[in-house]
């Protein structure tokens, strides 16, 4: 048995490693084709990426990405493609920030309230897609993509001076009313004159632990995973698939609502029109890369942060800044391919092993049998 586990571990690590190595090689080819020395570029990224202020940047960035990866992974675990994480996250962050700006309660009450509002809004936005799927059979892929656009329009309708926005005449920036000082989330000093690490990283870690516990240790989680592996078997086993679709959509949306919180509570303290777009889509890539496991997603989020940090530097060093975009895209592609290859190999390998072990058992049994009558 031990041997099996070791091999499974190896296979589990093999896929992302294979993906990243081949992505680096492919990117090297692209770099070489643009006439740049590829490995110099990686060297630049690495040298820059491990510096202490880069580490703070990466940790802060990964906090957001980690939550995004988790939100997507909840859906993925039951074969639901919640492409709408982006819209849910923006809408959640927007209403969270707006609510926070409007209230003046003590931080201890107000911060959880802001988080709650964001999660509720995210969950409600996601539930639209869930309800459409359950009662009308609308593919969640289509509906969530459309809901992303709708979320954008809704925000730009509300983020106007006089509605939920406040216009700064001087800077031309429309934003929600800034959070009061008391609602700023705590930060962890990183020493020296470095920027602090966002305290929300603690919440992200807790969310990861919660994710693991919910999926791996509860009945609900088992039902959810069962639906993901085989909807028909889950239904026959007594899982109410429709309710499961709805509740996992709600969970995914609530988690999506959390994504914007580190930025709102730890960084900008308000929602501006240029609040980052596309984090939800990054979450898809990260969930894929992290194999939907809480630890894998964490590693993937850190890698993503590292790549983006490196990208900023690459541009400075005169490389095309798009190269990191290419690298990220290639990683995602490689991940999909590598996982499928490793999965097939693993399955085949296991079947072979089972066959071999059974044959050995049978042989042993046979010799036993021959001894008995003798």
């Amino acid at each position, binding site marked *: 048995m031990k041997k099996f586990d070791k091999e499974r571990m190896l296979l589990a690590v093999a896929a992302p490693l294979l993906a990243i190595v081949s992505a680096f090689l492919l990117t090297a080819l692209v770099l070489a084709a643009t006439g740049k020395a590829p490995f110099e570029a990686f060297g630049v990224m690495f040298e820059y990426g491990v510096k202490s202020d880069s580490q703070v940047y990466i940790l802060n960035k990964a906090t957001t990405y980690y939550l995004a990866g988790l939100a997507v992974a909840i859906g993925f675990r039951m074969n639901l493609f919640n492409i709408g994480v982006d819209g849910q996250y923006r809408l959640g962050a927007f209403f969270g920030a707006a609510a926070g700006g409007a209230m003046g309660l003590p931080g201890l009450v107000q911060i959880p309230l802001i988080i709650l509002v964001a999660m509720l809004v995210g969950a409600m936005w996601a539930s639209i897609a869930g309800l459409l799927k359950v009662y009308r059979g609308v593919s969640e892929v289509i509906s969530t993509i459309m809901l992303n656009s709708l979320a954008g329009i809704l925000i730009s309708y509300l983020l106007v001076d006089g509605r939920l926005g406040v216009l700064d005449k001087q800077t031309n920036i429309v934003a929600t009313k800034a959070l009061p000082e008391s609602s700023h989330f705590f930060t962890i000093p990183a020493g020296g004159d470095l920027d602090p690490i966002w305290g929300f990283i603690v919440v992200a870690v807790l969310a990861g632990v919660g994710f693991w516990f919910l999926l791996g240790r509860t009945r609900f989680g088992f039902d959810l995973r069962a639906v993901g592996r085989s909807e028909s078997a889950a239904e026959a086993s007594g899982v109410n698939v429709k309710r499961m679709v709805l509740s996992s959509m709600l969970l995914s949306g609530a988690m999506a609502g959390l994504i914007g919180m580190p930025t709102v509570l730890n960084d900008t303290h308000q929602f*501006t029109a240029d609040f980052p777009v596309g984090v939800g889509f990054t979450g898809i890539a990260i969930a894929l890369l992290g194999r939907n496991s809480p630890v894998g997603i964490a590693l993937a989020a850190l890698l993503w942060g590292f790549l983006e940090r490196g990208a900023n530097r690459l541009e*400075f060093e005169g490389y095309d*800044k798009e190269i990191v975009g290419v690298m990220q895209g290639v990683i995602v592609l490689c991940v999909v391919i590598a996982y499928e290859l490793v999965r097939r190999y693993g399955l085949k390998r296991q079947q072979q092993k089972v066959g071999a072990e059974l044959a050995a058992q049978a042989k042993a049994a046979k010799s036993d049998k021959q001894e008995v009558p003798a």
Partner: protein
Amino acid sequence: MRRVSRIVVAGLATAALAFSATACGSSSESGSKDKGIGLAYDVGGRGDHSFNDSAAKGYDKAKKDFKIGGKELTAKDGDTDADRYDKLASLAEEGYNPVIGVGYAWTPSLSKAAKKYKDTDFAIVDSVVDLKNVASLVSAEHEGSYLAGVAAGLKTKTNKVGFIGGTDSSLIKKFAGGFQQGLKDTNPKAALNVQWVQVGSAKGFGMPDRGKDIADGMLSNKVDVIFSAAGGSGAGAIEATAKKKGTWSIGVDGDQYYDKGLAQYKHTIMTSMIKTVDGSVYDFIKSVAKDKKPESGIQSYDLKRGGVSLSYSGGFIDDIKPKIEAAKKKIIDGKIKVADTYKD
């Protein structure tokens, strides 16, 4: 050998990252002073035929005139304030001075960077950062757009005029508001059709095909003058207008009559509302590099200062020049107060 070890190092980066978050390497800060101009474009960057290009023009000219170096960086879609700050800080850290952020999206990050790098001179285009070492280069787009509205009101035959904005941001609404007021003051019968390429997203500045579609829609509704303040999307509108006889387009930011990418349509570009980002950028660099007396505070580039103007290239509006100049004078004299936002 060195190369090989770098490959290994790069490959291990990921794994290392997970565990080395606390292991302190040296900070990324290093570098010497006086490398020249640091210029940070907004999304789209150099080559957008518009706003960023205009800044690039001033930058290029200053580099040549003052014989200094420079480095250009560009923000990308999805960049957070932290990413933007990272770019500005890199420039300042490496010794670039002055450092200029092109576009209001740089406001929070530039404000943060200026606080940290007190010896560096910063400038922000289109926004205001109230710090001693920051010059805020703002333009009176609404005043220039008012003149464009006057020209449109005089030139339209169908009494239907269109405005295409890249997005419904307050900056673009300055254009729309001034244009609307100029139009109504000149030709009360003219109806204005306002459309946004993308609501709530700066992506609307880079969608020429959408711009073309919207313009086509307007043209089929008998609109015969279209003013687009939509960055790269405006090129689509100009193309659409060129294809229908007797219709005019109004360019924006630069003098689009001379835009090489639009050369084949220039006979239909009636005028351009020029916003001299190049001028303000150039002036600012000059104040730092040559005069050694850096500008600071709000530098308002209005009609009076020549920060905005209407072009007469091609001679299409020479016939109405007196009326335009009259309007211009009234604004400069304060007799006309131009609204700086658009209301339906």
